[in-house]
Structure formats: C-alpha cells, structure tokens
C-alpha cells in the first residue's frame, strides 16, 4: 500500500500559507503567506525549524516564492504589485532588487532553468519576462498579453526557455522567443478546462504538462512536434499540445496546485477538499492515451484548503504542503 507518512507539522504563518519552495539542495525551503512574511526553514536534528524570517519586503500578501536554480536568489511575488529578489551577498538575506511594472497583484514568479530569465504574472492579465542583466539588475524583455483574464501561475519548461501560464480565462498558454526577431510570442493555447486553471507542472522531459483547475479535474497534455509519427496536425512549424488524459471524479473541490516529481514520475495534487492525492502512471500504457491511477489519498491532510504541494528536488520522496490553516506539513511518500 502506498501512503503519505507525516514527518512534521509546523504552525508556520499567521493566516493563510499560500506557497512553499524547495531550495535546490533540498535542505532548505521558503514559505510565504497572508502575514507578509517569508520564512526560511532548514533541517536541524529536531526536524525543520525556522532559520531566517524576511519581513518588511512587501506591503501585502506574499503569494509565491521561488528559489533560483543556483540557490543564491529567492524571488517573492506579492499582491502589492511588486516582485522582490533576495540574496545574501552581504552575509544575510536582503532584498537587493524590486521588479515593478504590474498594475496590481502579482500572483506567480518563476526562474528559467538557466536562471537567466524570470517570469511573473498577475491580475492585470499580463505575463512579464525579465532578463537578469547584471548584479541586482533586471530588465523587462517582454510583456505578454495573451490571456483575457487574470493569470494565476507561470512555470518554465525544465530544460528549455519555454514558458507556460495558467489563467482565470480557463486556458493555458505556451510562449517562446522567436529566434529571428527575439520577440516573445504565444505559440500554443491549451483549451479544455471548464473554469479557472490554478496551476500546472511539466514532467521531467518537458514534453508533457499536467494542469489542475477549479473544474475539479486534472488534465495531462502532450506536445506533438512538427512531423510527429502519430500524424497529429501541427500548424506553423510550432508544436501543438493535445489533452491526452483527464482525471475527473477524484477531486470534490477546486484543485489549487499540482506537482509532477521529476524522479519518481508521481503526480501530487493540493485541493480545496483538504485532501492530498498521489497519482501514478500505469505501466506499459499507450503514450498517446495514458492511464493514471490514484494510489494514495490523504484525507484531512490539512484542516482547511491545501494551497500548494512540492516534491523535494533530491529524490527522497519528501513532499511539503501548506494550507489556509496556517500550517506547513512535511510528508514522506512510502510505496510498500
């Protein structure tokens, strides 16, 4: 039987905990929430303990935090309309750059795999791509207005400079930089969800994407490149993305986050029904019509909505989650 074993439960923030982010070394994670505080947690002998508290960075709720791939920078996106970049060049963590430009709430921030680009999105319906231009310098490369409602989440492809965004307009969009004129363009629109798409996650190859929505479903999408063997029609030399699997009937309320583990291949979901679920791809299934089985369902994972789930990047099957109840929980996935 597969199960999620609770390793530790932490009263982490006052009010809603919106997001958690693992440091690439897997020994530290950051958390943020309604209390406008960023907490950095590290593993001590007694378990996870707060090591640093970053206060005064933002005037309103901090919606998302993200470690850079090198682990030296932490970005935080806030309802106050700004994105802050923190580092500890001076010996302790300080905010050394602030990205301004969104008209109002910034809802998500993500570093590209090289760490050279940042993406942000928000209620003003736009997605911004920023380039790291030097020490504490960030230059806006593109403002993408492909969505017609607020944008909930931005996520980068695991190895390429390909960006995906999820929106209140029920769609997911994929963006790439045109090699000829260096312009960023929306190259694909993924339509199938019936209402807000809250989050998305690439698999380790970046050729599949899992999305989750307030329509209580998870959808798996596959990239079909030009001249693909299956003969899926592809226009304009860009790949097309096709929904190859819908997981419906499992969640009873909105699904706020989804995480595809790049080591185990397991998919974890965080839902407004207080449950964390783990899905596993069936072996030997058709790659163009795969089956995913629900292998673990943790009832009352939190006492309120689960807002975020993240797999530890070091392949130890640890999962961290956070909730409206002010708590963070660290879990170990066991498949016995």
């Amino acid at each position: 039987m597969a199960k999620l074993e609770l390793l530790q439960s932490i009263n982490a923030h006052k009010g809603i905990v919106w997001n958690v982010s693992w440091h690439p070394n897997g020994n530290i994670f950051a958390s943020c929430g309604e209390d406008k505080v960023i907490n950095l947690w590290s593993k001590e002998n007694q378990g996870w303990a707060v090591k640093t508290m970053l206060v005064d960075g933002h005037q309103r709720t901090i919606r998302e935090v993200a470690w850079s791939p090198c682990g030296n920078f932490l970005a935080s996106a806030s309802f106050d309309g700004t994105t802050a970049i923190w580092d500890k060049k001076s010996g302790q963590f300080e905010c050394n750059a602030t990205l301004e430009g969104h008209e109002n709430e910034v809802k998500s921030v993500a570093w590209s795999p090289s760490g050279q680009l940042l993406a942000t999105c928000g209620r003003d319906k736009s997605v911004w791509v920023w380039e790291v231009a030097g020490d504490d310098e960030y230059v806006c490369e593109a403002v993408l207005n492909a969505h017609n409602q607020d944008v909930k989440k931005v996520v980068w492809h695991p190895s390429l400079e390909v960006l995906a965004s999820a929106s209140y307009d029920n769609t997911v969009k994929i963006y790439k930089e045109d090699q000829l004129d260096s312009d960023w363009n929306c190259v694909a629109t993924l339509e199938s969800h019936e209402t807000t798409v809250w989050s998305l996650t690439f698999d380790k190859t970046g050729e599949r994407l899992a999305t989750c929505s307030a329509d209580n479903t998870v959808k798996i999408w596959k990239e079909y490149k030009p001249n693909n063997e299956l003969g899926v029609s592809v226009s304009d030399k860009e790949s097309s993305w096709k929904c190859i699997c819908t997981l419906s009937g499992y969640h009873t309320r909105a699904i706020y986050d989804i995480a595809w583990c790049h080591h185990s291949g397991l998919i974890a979901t965080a839902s407004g029904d207080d449950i964390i679920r783990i899905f596993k791809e069936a072996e030997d299934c058709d790659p163009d019509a795969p089956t995913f089985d629900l292998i673990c369902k943790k009832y009352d994972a939190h006492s309120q909505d689960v807002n975020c789930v993240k797999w530890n990047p070091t392949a130890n099957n640890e999962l961290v989650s956070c909730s409206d109840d002010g708590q963070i929980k660290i879990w170990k996935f066991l498949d016995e």
Partner: protein
Amino acid sequence: MKVADNVNPNVYEKGSVREVTKSDLDEELNDDFDQREIFDIIRNISDPEHPLTLEELRVVEESNVIIDNKNNLVHVYFTPTIPHCSMATLIGLSIRVQLLRALPSRFKVTVEVTEGTHVSEHAVNKQLADKERIAAALENNNLVQIINQCVRSV
C-alpha cells in the same frame, strides 16, 4: 450622488425571532448548525443601496440556505432585486465575509446567485468562488469598510 440601480424595491416583512429552546441552553448537548442558524447570521446584513436588510428585500431567504453538517458544507443562494443589479458581487462578498467570520473554519462556504436571477450570474459566481480574488479584495481597506458597513446590523 449615484442613483440606486433599483430605486423602489419591493420590501417584505421580517421573519420572527428564533425561539430559544431548552436544548439550546444545554452546554453538554452536541448541537449541529441548522438552516435557521445560518440564515440568522446573514439575514440582518444591510443592502449597500437601501437602509434595509437582505431579508427585507428577500435577497436572502431561509429556504435558500443549504447546510450539510456531516460534510461541513454551507451553500447560500442569494437573489438580486433586479437582474442587472451592479451590486450583486458586493452583496455576495458581504454574505461570504459574514459567514467566514461567524462559522468555524471547518466549513466550506459557497455563495452563489439564485439560478436565473442575474444577467451576469456565471461571472458573479466565478468571482465569488475565487478565494485568491476574495483574499486580495479583503486587503483593500476601502472595500472592507463598505463590507463592514453592510454586515453591521441595520
């Protein structure tokens, strides 16, 4: 001053006050929430445009409250006085805020427009169901002041 959307709404009589029974006073009794208790929490919210309660305007009615104690679900349907009421989202937000403040956090609260009673029913419902937008709205002091005025009994 802005003229109200519905200048002359129908006004209905208020219901009676809930009678306190012996079992209400029994501290030992495990007492579930009932439809009437949920209704009592929201009936005295005032309309943003009139010095009247949502009950007097029949925006909220006891029969439009659904409670499921076992699954911790509360569902409230509200009925704008006119189908193009521009205050529908604000009224829904006031109902939601009042319930979130009054009920234990284990409850999942859904507030929706009564089917077929508003031109933007779907858009209003979607907005009221988006917890991130609600959280952001509740950080807006001006809006919170307006909501507090509404939820303060008339």
